[in-house]
């Protein structure tokens, strides 16, 4: 990352050279490495997404073949999920800001932290290596198709196994860090809400990720040794894979969204200059979501052939995730009541998060209810729904966090004007791309279709044009990041006048974060009664 000049401190960025990054034990550098890596796959996955949309403008073979299309949507989904959204906020922003927000000098196990980054990279290299014969299974790898297709599924499984192991180690590290390294005086109820979100996330990572590791191991064994766990001809059960897969992949949805909710809980009070409303409810709802998240995986399988009784129970349990989630939304809105609100780019992204995430959440109601899910399952309705929760939710949360913490991470400010243009284009493009897909799905267009009957074309064209505007917004945004990295104005220690501990050290922070370890005497959201620290 680039550096302030004119005699200002370069902080943790002082050392230069490859070794100073590759072998660093500093959680901030490791966080930055994760951010660079995951954002790269966000852009790559985004390019695949654009190609998918271009193909779907014309339902023929004009652009590229159906097989290429199948490979592209598989790569789009897998990279976005396994290499961007899951590790993005937890490993990127989490690594960077957990120690800063709790007043610690580093995470509990800095060497383990470095190891988990390089295990992540090793996993990526294995995955990329397996693409010599590109996979065409979709990111869900359902058997028996995944056991039969020509791709290197066994090698790929090993790559995902490694990425998962990295995720477990990071979660473990964070749990210990939060338990053992909080600054003097920081009780559990004085912890920033981002920490609560990350803590709940880490519990899911540690408990759920081993299951996906084992699942992919079984899949690899199925392919290499032909054991037949999932093959009915050998007495196996094709649905068993789906149960295993969703037992991980549903909880992991909350690995994606809880950290983003944590970011929003930090940004809203700062830009409203108002104490967060219902602190305890927001904090404990994160744990509630993490817990309930383990009990609902079957709602991905209502039409799979699973028993009807199981479907009914899973539907019932699924709806209870909606309650702690809506509590958070109501509390964020209530925080704005009688505030003194400003609309710098982090706040714009935070408000966008709320608006889009509500659409994602409410359309989830149609999927939790049995009768309606049967109709829209595996159609574009699902595609729209999860893009609203994952891109409208998690990605907007990540962007809110990036814009909010950019000055702290790099010691430089972003251009506010460019940031707003990037936001506007992203917002318009996103809605144009995905809103129409709800209707396409309701009208019956299945997902993962390379071709479709003519009645679906008009809305597909709208969606594709939307994807170009969205890409334009992302392009403007990233040009701002790159410009900000090298030529942004020097950032003060506390540009947004926040009260959390990271703003009480210089921008960028020194190697061990704080000159003297801060002593905490109050929660971090008392905006009315306390004066902000720092030189803001």
């Amino acid at each position: 990352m680039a550096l302030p000049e004119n005699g200002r401190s370069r902080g943790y960025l002082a050392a230069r050279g490859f070794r100073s990054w590759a072998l660093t034990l500093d959680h901030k550098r490791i966080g930055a490495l994760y951010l660079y890596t995951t954002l790269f796959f966000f852009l790559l996955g985004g390019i695949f997404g654009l190609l998918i949309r271009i193909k779907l403008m014309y339902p023929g073979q004009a652009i590229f073949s159906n097989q290429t299309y199948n490979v592209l949507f598989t790569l789009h989904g897998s990279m976005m999920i396994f290499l961007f959204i899951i590790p993005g906020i937890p490993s990127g922003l989490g690594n960077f800001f957990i120690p800063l927000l709790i007043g610690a000098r580093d995470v509990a196990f800095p060497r383990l932290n470095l190891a988990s980054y390089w295990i992540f990279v090793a996993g990526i290299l294995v995955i990329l290596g397996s693409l010599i014969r590109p996979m065409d299974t979709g990111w869900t790898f359902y058997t028996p198709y995944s056991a039969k297709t020509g791709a290197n599924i066994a090698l790929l499984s090993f790559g995902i196994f490694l990425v998962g192991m990295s995720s477990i180690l990071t979660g473990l590290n964070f749990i210990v860090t939060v338990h053992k390294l909080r600054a003097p005086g920081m009780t559990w109820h004085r912890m920033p809400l981002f920490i609560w979100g990350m803590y709940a996330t880490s519990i899911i990572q540690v408990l759920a990720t081993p299951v996906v590791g084992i699942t992919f191991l079984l899949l690899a064994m199925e392919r290499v040794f032909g054991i037949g766990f999932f093959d009915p001809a050998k007495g196996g059960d094709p649905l068993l894979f789906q149960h295993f897969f969703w037992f991980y992949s549903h909880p992991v949805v909350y690995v994606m969204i809880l950290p983003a909710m944590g970011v929003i809980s930090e940004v809203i009070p700062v830009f409203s200059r108002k104490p967060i409303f219902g602190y305890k409810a927001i904090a404990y709802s994160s744990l509630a979501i993490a817990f309930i998240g383990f009990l609902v995986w079957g709602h991905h399988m209502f039409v799979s052939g699973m028993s009807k009784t199981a479907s009914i129970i899973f539907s019932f349990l699924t709806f209870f995730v909606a309650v702690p989630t809506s509590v958070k939304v109501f509390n964020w809105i209530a925080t704005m009541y009688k505030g003194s609100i400003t609309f710098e780019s982090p706040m714009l992204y935070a408000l966008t998060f709320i608006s889009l995430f509500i659409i994602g959440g409410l359309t989830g109601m149609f999927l939790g209810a049995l009768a309606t899910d049967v109709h829209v399952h595996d159609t574009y309705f699902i595609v729209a729904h999860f893009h609203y929760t994952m891109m409208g939710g998690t990605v907007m949360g990540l962007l809110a966090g990036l814009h909010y913490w950019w000055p702290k991470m790099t010691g430089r400010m972003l251009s506010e004007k460019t940031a707003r243009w990037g936001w506007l284009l992203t917002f318009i493009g996103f809605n144009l791309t995905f809103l129409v897909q709800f209707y396409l799905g309701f009208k019956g267009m299945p997902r993962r279709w390379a071709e479709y009957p003519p009645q679906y074309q008009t809305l597909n064209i709208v969606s594709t044009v939307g994807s170009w505007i969205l890409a334009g917004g992302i392009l403007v945004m990233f040009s701002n990041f790159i410009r900000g990295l090298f030529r942004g104005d020097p950032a003060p220690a506390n540009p947004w006048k926040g009260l959390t501990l990271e703003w009480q050290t210089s921008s960028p922070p020194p190697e061990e974060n704080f000159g003297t370890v801060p002593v905490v005497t109050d929660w971090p959201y008392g905006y009315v009664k306390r004066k902000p620290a720092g030189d803001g």
Partner: protein
Amino acid sequence: MTNAFAGGAAASPSAWQIDAVFLFIACVSLFFFLLVEGLLIYFAIRYRRRKASEDAALSDVRSNTLLEIVWVLVPSLAVLAFFTYGYVVFRDVTAPQPGASDVNVTAGQFLYEFKYADGRTAVNELRVPIGPPVKLIMTSRDVIHGFFIPEYRIKQDILPGQYTYLYFQPDREGTFDIFCTQYCGVGHSNMRAKLIVMSPDAYSTWKAEAEGAKAALPLFEKGKELLERFGCLGCHSVDGSVKVGPTFKGLFGRMVLLEAGGEAKADEEYIRESIVDPGAKVVKGFPNAMPTFKGSVSDDDMAAIVAFLKTQK
């Protein structure tokens, strides 16, 4: 470009029931959406900072127990209503219907084969009369497929080595789409079939004609009918366009390049081999995706298919 809003209307009583659940959830959700979005926009405008000096909020409210209890209870009641209504309708539309006529469905990459009780079979075309409910008894011969009739609002995955079931009651004449909704490989998006709902009279006439007409057809026309019946034309076009497999136009007698290298002449023997052992000589540029038809295409059928291909110059 065609009208995006045409088609897809509910086409059975159970579809209307499901649409009613949709409407109910949509109305309640819309209420919450407008409430939250309205408050967000109202607060954003009403409480925006007007002067730089107003660097503190008007209020220090940190919680309100009564308010928080209300907004735990209200969403809880709403989701309980969603669950209950969704469950009741689901129970009704998936319940076995007495007096249903059975149709066996075998799905495979990338077609549906329908087998009626009286021994007739058809590929990618399911004809039923208006009136009696239909029970589909479904299994797959390879990977997982889906069976989706959008206008009936029903869907069920089809698994290898296991039977799944789907009920519907046709009460309106018409032709309805059947889509595969579980990704099943390169031909997934071409795995489509038609449900044709006929009046009881028309149905029995068609049934009689279908039996009678078969013998009288000239060989090449029988071949064309077979290609349609076996679903070949889902993947192979006759007009030169490229689908999952190579086109039939101008195929017969030509030399074709092979994926494994070399070339082969598309003669009678090559066509027979490609039907019973499709992986043996895969045409260059196409996936080895075709299932074998060994055992389902008789020698007479084979002859008719070859006769038809010869007509496709």
